[in-house]
C-alpha cells in the first residue's frame, strides 16, 4: 500500500514535512529546498522559533559568547527561501491516514499565539522525523536546570543561566577567602554527551584561572564512563604526535595538568541542594557536594503515539523510545555487536516514506561496553550522536527523498552508517585568540569496527588522531562561524560540508 501511494506521490508534486529544526531537521530542509523545484513543498514543524548552533553553548556557559551569537530566528529565513514553517509540536503519527483524512499525516499542536493549544492535521508524502532527544531531567530526582545549584549547557537558555550562577560564584570567591567545589559531568547512570561536559569542565577551569580564583576551587569530573575518555564511544586508540595513545591516557594527562579530580563509573541518581547522590560500579552509594554543578541529563524519546487508519495504536511499529529505522535491533551480547547493526538509510521499515536522521533514530545498542553495578544498576554511557553525524545523515536522507521524487520510485542509493563515517570532536578547552586551548580529535569510524581494524581498537589509526593546542580553539571558532553561515543559507553555503 505504501509503495502504491509513493508512485502516486511522484506523479504529482511532493510535500515533505520535517519535524524539528535542529541540526538534522534544518540541514534536511535546506538541502531539499535547494535541490527541489518550487512546486514541491518543504514544510518544517518545530516548537523552536530559533536555530541554535549547540556546540557553542559551552562558550555561553562561561560568559565568553552571548546567547544571541549562537542562534538566529528561523521564520525570516524560511520565508525568504520558500520553506514552510509551523511553530508547533508533533503529538501523534498517522502514517496510513484515518477515517477523517486518507493521506498520511501527523497531528501537531500550536504552542504560542492565538492558535496556542489548537491541533491540526499536517499531511505529507514524505516525513523526516528530526525531533532529536528529549532532555530527560525528570529521570534524575532533583535534577532541573537552575535548581539545587545544578545547571545544564544543553540549550543556550540553560547555558546562559549556568553562566549567571558561575559568575556569582566567581564574584563571591573574589570578595572572600572561601573555598568552593565545582562538579561537572553526567547526571544520570545512562547519560551520554560526555564530550560537551568534558569541554565545559576545561573551559570553566580556564575561566577560574582568568578570574584569579582557581586556587580556591576544587574541580571534579563525575561520569558514568568506566575509563576517562570513553565518550560513549568505547574510548579510542588514536595517533597523537605520530604515536599511538589511548583516549583515557590523553584525558588523564589533561586532567592531571589542569588539577581536575575524577570520579568514574558513577551513576548520579538524585540531586539535592549542593549534593549529588550516586551509585558506583562497586555498588557503593556515595555523595559529592558542590557549590556549582553542570550535569548532563539522560536523553529519551518524546513519547509519541502512532495509529493506523482504523485508529488502532501502532506505536511499536514506529518507535522503540526513539524512531525505529533500518538497524538490526536483535538483542545480542556486547561481544557479538557489529557495525552492520547500525542503520544506513534511516528509513522506517514499516513505512518507507518516513525517515529519522540525527538523534531521532533508535540506536541498535550502545557503543561502549554495557556495565552494571553489583546491585544490578546499569551504569554506562548511551551512544552519542552529535552534530556532525546528524548533519551527514540528514543530508543523505534528503538526497534519497530527492532521488525518489525524481525517479518516481523509492531510491536508497545514499547510505551513511556510523560504522563507515568519520567524525571530528573539536573540544574547546579554553577560550581566547592567543590563550585559547583545544583538543582536536578525529575518529574513523564512529562505531568501532573490531573486525576491520582488530589491532587498533576498531578504528583506522591513520584517520583517528588527537592534537592539543591553540589551533584546536581556532578550528572550533572557525566551525562556529562557518556553520552559522551555512545554516543561514548565505551564498554558496552548500559548499561547506556537513
Amino acid at each position, binding site marked *: 500500500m505504501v509503495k502504491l501511494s509513493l508512485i502516486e506521490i511522484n506523479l504529482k508534486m511532493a510535500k515533505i514535512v520535517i519535524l524539528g529544526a535542529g541540526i538534522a531537521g534544518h540541514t534536511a530542509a535546506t538541502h531539499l529546498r535547494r535541490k527541489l523545484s518550487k512546486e514541491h513543498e518543504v514544510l518544517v514543524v518545530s516548537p523552536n522559533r530559533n536555530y541554535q548552533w549547540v556546540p557553542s553553548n559551552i562558550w555561553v556557559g562561561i560568559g565568553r559568547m552571548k546567547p544571541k551569537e549562537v542562534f538566529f530566528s528561523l521564520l525570516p529565513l524560511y520565508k525568504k527561501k520558500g520553506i514552510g514553517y509551523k511553530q508547533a509540536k508533533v503529538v501523534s503519527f498517522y502514517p496510513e491516514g484515518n477515517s477523517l483524512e486518507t493521506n498520511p499525516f501527523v497531528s501537531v499542536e500550536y504552542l504560542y499565539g492565538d492558535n496556542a493549544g489548537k491541533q491540526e492535521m499536517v499531511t505529507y508524502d514524505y516525513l523526516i522525523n528530526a525531533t532529536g532527544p528529549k532532555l530527560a531531567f525528570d529521570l534524575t530526582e532533583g535534577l532541573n536546570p537552575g535548581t539545587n545549584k545544578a545547571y545544564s549547557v544543553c540549550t543556550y537558555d540553560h547555558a546562559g543561566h549556568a553562566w549567571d550562577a558561575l559568575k556569582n560564584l566567581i564574584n563571591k570567591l573574589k570578595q572572600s577567602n572561601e573555598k568552593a567545589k565545582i562538579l561537572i559531568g553526567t547526571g544520570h547512570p545512562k547519560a551520554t554527551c560526555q564530550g560537551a561536559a568534558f569541554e565545559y569542565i576545561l573551559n570553566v577551569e580556564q575561566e577560574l584561572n582568568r578570574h584569579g580564583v582557581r586556587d580556591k576551587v576544587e574541580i571534579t569530573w563525575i561520569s558514568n564512563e568506566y575509563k576517562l575518555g570513553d565518550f560513549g564511544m568505547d574510548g579510542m586508540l588514536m595517533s597523537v604526535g605520530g604515536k599511538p595513545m589511548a583516549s583515557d591516557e590523553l584525558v588523564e594527562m589533561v586532567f*592531571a595538568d589542569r588539577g581536575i579530580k575524577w570520579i568514574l563509573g558513577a551513576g548520579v541518581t538524585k540531586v539535592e541542594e549542593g549534593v549529588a547522590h550516586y551509585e558506583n560500579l562497586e555498588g557503593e552509594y556515595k555523595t559529592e557536594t558542590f557549590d556549582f554543578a553542570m550535569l548532563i541529563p539522560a536523553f529519551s524519546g518524546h513519547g509519541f503515539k502512532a495509529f493506523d487508519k482504523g485508529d488502532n495504536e501502532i506505536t511499536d511499529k514506529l518507535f522503540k523510545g526513539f524512531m525505529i529505522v533500518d538497524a538490526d535491533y536483535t538483542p545480542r551480547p556486547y561481544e557479538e555487536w557489529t557495525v552492520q547493526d547500525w542503520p544506513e538509510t534511516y528509513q522506517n521499515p514499516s513505512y518507507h516514506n518516513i525517515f529519522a536522521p540525527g538523534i531521532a533514530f533508535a540506536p541498535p545498542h550502545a557503543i561502549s561496553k554495557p556495565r552494571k553495578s553489583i546491585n544490578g544498576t546499569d551504569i554506562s554511557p548511551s551512544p552519542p550522536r552529535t552534530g556532525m553525524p546528524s548533519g551527514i545523515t540528514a543530508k543523505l536522507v534528503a538526497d534519497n527523498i530527492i532521488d525518489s521524487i525524481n525517479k518516481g520510485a523509492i531510491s536508497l542509493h545514499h547510505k551513511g*552508517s556510523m560504522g563507515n563515517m568519520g567524525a571530528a570532536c573539536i573540544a574547546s578547552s579554553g577560550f581566547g585568540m592567543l590563550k585559547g586551548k583545544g583538543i582536536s580529535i578525529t575518529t574513523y569510524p564512529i562505531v568501532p569496527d573490531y573486525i576491520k581494524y582488530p589491532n587498533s581498537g576498531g578504528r583506522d589509526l591513520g584517520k583517528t588522531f588527537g592534537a592539543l*593546542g591553540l589551533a584546536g580553539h581556532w578550528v572550533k571558532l572557525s566551525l562556529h562561524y562557518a556553520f552559522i553561515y551555512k545554516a543561514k543559507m548565505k551564498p554558496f553555503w552548500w559548499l561547506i560540508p556537513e
Partner: protein
Amino acid sequence: MVKKITRFQKFVMHNPFIQFFMFLFLNVKILSVVAFGHGGTRDKK
C-alpha cells in the same frame, strides 16, 4: 602512571606561529576524515 605534558609540548601548544601551521593542517586533516567516504557497511559483510 599518568603521563605529563612536558614544557616543550606546552611551548608548541601555545606558540601562535607553530599553531597557525597546525591550524591549516588540522583543517585539511579534519576535512579528509569527515567530508568523504560515507557509505554503508552491509555490502561488505
